[in-house]
């Protein structure tokens, strides 16, 4: 898999400890949910950020997606808590 830009917002960003990073997940990481599971194994801060993946929302290339969405072809994936704008 080629390089993927990840962006984190709100408390996901705070727990991970960075706003964005480039990653290269292995080929068997095929969906958003699998990407979260892979990230959670990268260290304590990631484990904390992704401890409850059901509450985390994702966007691929700036469009909301569900956790079962394939990440193939994605350039930018963002993870964040449920939105509280307005």
């Amino acid at each position, binding site marked *: 898999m080629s390089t993927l830009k990840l*962006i984190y917002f*709100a408390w996901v960003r705070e727990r991970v400890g960075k706003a964005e990073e480039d990653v290269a997940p292995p080929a068997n990481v095929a969906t958003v949910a699998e990407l979260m599971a892979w990230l959670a194994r990268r260290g304590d801060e990631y484990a904390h950020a992704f401890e409850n993946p059901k509450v985390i929302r994702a966007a691929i290339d*700036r*469009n909301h997606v569900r956790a079962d969405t394939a990440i193939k072809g994605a350039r930018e994936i963002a993870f*964040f*808590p*449920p939105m*509280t*704008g*307005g």
Partner: protein
Amino acid sequence: MSNTVRLQAGEFDAAAEAALLTRGRTDIGAVVTFTGICRGAESGEPIAALTLEHYPGMAEAEIARHVEEANARWPLLGVTVIHRHGRIEPGENIVLVVTASSHREAAFAAAEFLMDYLKTRAPFWKQVESAAGKNWVDAKSNDDAAAERWTKPSGREAAE
């Protein structure tokens, strides 16, 4: 038809924005303006400020998509959405939605639709600053329920 979507750190003038939509026109019969304001307390606890984080590339595109959808659903003659980000103190504005139409039903429905979506789908996150420190605001299930009604054939639209 005039559609405006703007994200900005600074304050906005709700009245001037509404006036811009209607100036010089005689086809508009109804203008609905919604202004969301930072309250001085959350759940009874005084707050010092809200800080709104947003997803710069996505927020504007996401709002513009919903403005397009509002225009597809209702016969609108103009829509303005302004959403602030950054630090906002009690009494300051957070968000503005202005909808203009020939008749009131479309203007009201579109303004509510846009607010329900801004609350639940636009990539903004509120952090509350208070004596207890800084805390991220939890999403409200009643906001999700409010947004949900626009995806069902029953409910408000069927009554109109």
